[in-house]
């Protein structure tokens, strides 16, 4: 058995993170809502198998940037994105790129748990079904089980897979949403304040889960909680007023940031 200690696994992942090319690259990304400019030429790279935390005060553009990464901004009527964002060196705003396929590769978990008002099983199996990832019933069962296991929810729900997903507790619902995103086997998972509607215990479970998911996925998480950013991420990016202030290793960011504004924000002097 190839049993590595947890620390060794971490170390290997960190090594991989530092070696790996950038999974997603944002170059001069600007976003306009109508005439209002929400992001100013953001250059931010997302490394593979890394949890990248986006922090900053409300309205600073971190969620906007996150939603650019899987083109969820397309659904907003008067939203315009300029600049270039690549996923594995492919421009995701290229007309040749299908947004449906992009979103299958870059999944998303939202601020409020939003399971479909269907059974737990249907919630998880929906993505694989529409993308044709699992053909037979056995395949679908397999995907559902493994996704729920990855989301740490399997033991809690295995006996009631066919009950409604909306009947779960808030924390369970959010993990169900993560399982639903994981079931499509995305490469990147975007999380928009996934714990803001959860109590501390559920938050701890989700954070633990994010930590485990890092081994298989690249994760970008928006959070308002400094402690959460420090706990779960390896890289942190600080936004302010639509600008990227600083991007750095999380450890450095929280101990010795390069930018005064980062320091002030982390110390709670504004925001």
């Amino acid at each position: 058995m190839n049993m590595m200690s947890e620390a060794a696994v971490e170390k290997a992942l960190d090594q991989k993170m530092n070696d790996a090319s950038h999974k997603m690259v944002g170059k001069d990304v600007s976003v306009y809502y109508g005439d209002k400019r929400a992001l100013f030429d953001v250059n931010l790279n997302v490394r593979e198998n890394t949890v990248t935390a986006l922090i900053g005060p409300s309205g600073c553009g971190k969620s906007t940037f996150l939603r650019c990464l899987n083109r969820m901004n397309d659904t907003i009527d008067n939203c315009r994105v300029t600049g270039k964002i690549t996923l594995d060196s492919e421009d995701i705003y290229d007309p040749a790129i299908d947004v449906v396929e992009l979103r299958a590769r870059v999944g998303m978990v939202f601020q409020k748990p939003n399971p479909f008002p269907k059974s737990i099983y249907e919630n998880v199996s929906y993505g694989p079904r529409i993308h044709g990832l699992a053909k037979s019933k056995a395949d679908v069962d397999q995907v559902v089980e493994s996704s729920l296991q990855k989301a740490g929810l399997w033991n809690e729900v295995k006996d009631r897979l066919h009950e409604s997903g909306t009947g779960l507790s808030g924390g369970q619902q959010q993990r169900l949403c993560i399982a639903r995103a994981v079931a499509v086997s995305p490469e990147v998972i975007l999380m928009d304040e996934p714990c803001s509607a959860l109590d501390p215990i559920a938050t701890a479970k989700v954070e633990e889960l994010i930590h485990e998911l890092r081994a298989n996925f690249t994760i970008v998480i928006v959070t308002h909680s400094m402690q959460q950013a420090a706990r779960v991420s390896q890289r942190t990016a600080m936004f302010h007023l639509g600008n990227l202030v600083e991007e750095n290793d999380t450890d450095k960011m929280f101990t010795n940031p390069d930018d005064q504004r980062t320091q002030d924000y982390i110390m709670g002097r504004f925001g």
Partner: protein
Amino acid sequence: MTDVVTPAAGVAGTRATRRDIGIKRRYAAERRFRTYGLAAISFGLIFLALLLWSVFSKGYTAFQQSMITIPVEFSEQIIDPDNERATNPRGLATANYPLVARNALAKVLGVSPDDRPAMRDVNGLISDSVRGQLRDMVVSNPSVIGTTQNVALLASGNIDSALKGQVDLTVTEQSRRINDRQLGWMNQLMESGALAKEWNAGIFINGASSRPEAAGVGVAIIGSFYMMLIVLVLSLPIGVAASIYLEEFAPKNRLTDLIEVNINNLAAVPSIVYGLLGLSVFINFMGAPRSASLVGGLVLTLMTLPTIIIATRAALKAVPPSIRAAALGLGASKMQTIFHHVLPLAMPGILTGTIIGLAHALGETAPLLLIGMVAFVANYPTTPLDPSTALPVQIYMWANEAERAFVERTSGAIIILLLFLIAMNVGAILLRRRFERRW
């Protein structure tokens, strides 16, 4: 000492009273508001009760019909005096059947057939529709000629009304439509058991008739059914498709705003205008037949569409955006998002809107008057292209009739219409429940 204590107590006292007054006033306002609400509801309930009581108390007797069951001699001399029914079967259709019935009744009452005034009064006891009843018996089975059969004959409308106690018998004989001799016979027949009230299936089955005892809403029910079918088949898909497009796909600009305003306006257009539109477009321009339920259905479809579109759009809007975001975030296409998630969630609202629209259309009269559905139709329409009437139009026509017996039939038809509406609403509730349980 007192200087110190008094102000403190005074301040505490004022504060306490001020608070008490405020709270009391707020509770009083709440109680008042509740009373207003209760009053409004009781007011509505009282009027509903009055309406139902008035309709049912007048209308329940319409479901009973007086029948005179007597032995009828199918005399060969009257029906087929020349004995040519083998060669000329159509002769049977024109025989003097009222005479057969009259003679039978005269025999039971002991009236001489030669006493002409008495015979006229005898004739007043039975409905003219016995002509058709006896004719159908003989034509379908000529072997009854020459035999005597027990037949239940429809009593005339006047006798029916008198038997149900709807005729004022205290006025002088000249000022009522039924004379003392007929009343005596009526009592005589009742005592012998020949005259009795029976379940009136005719009101559901028969077509139009100028004789109240033989009139029914059969044609109207079929016409209304055809129209509802046409409205449902056309307005549900068109309405839902239009709403989905407007709500989910259409760009938000001046044009779509204009369309939205117009749809809302159309919902408020008086229905008679739709009738005129149907008359000029469907009948005069396209040459569709008059009085046909097809045209009625098309006009009612136009009228129902705005209702369904508004209800559907509201139902689609009410689906939380987080569900859309969840589906889109998983990589579902817009179509998949709408048809897998949004539409099922909006379904109860859409169904409710549709059924309300249908119920509205079922009770609509004015546009149907203009396209000629206010017609005397005695024969069942076999297709939606045949002339027919509709339930509310039938009620309207009966309400205009002079005979006393039509009053109860009008109420009876209203009861039938209300039953259909209740059935539709129950159906809507059941459908809603079913759809809601699936989530």
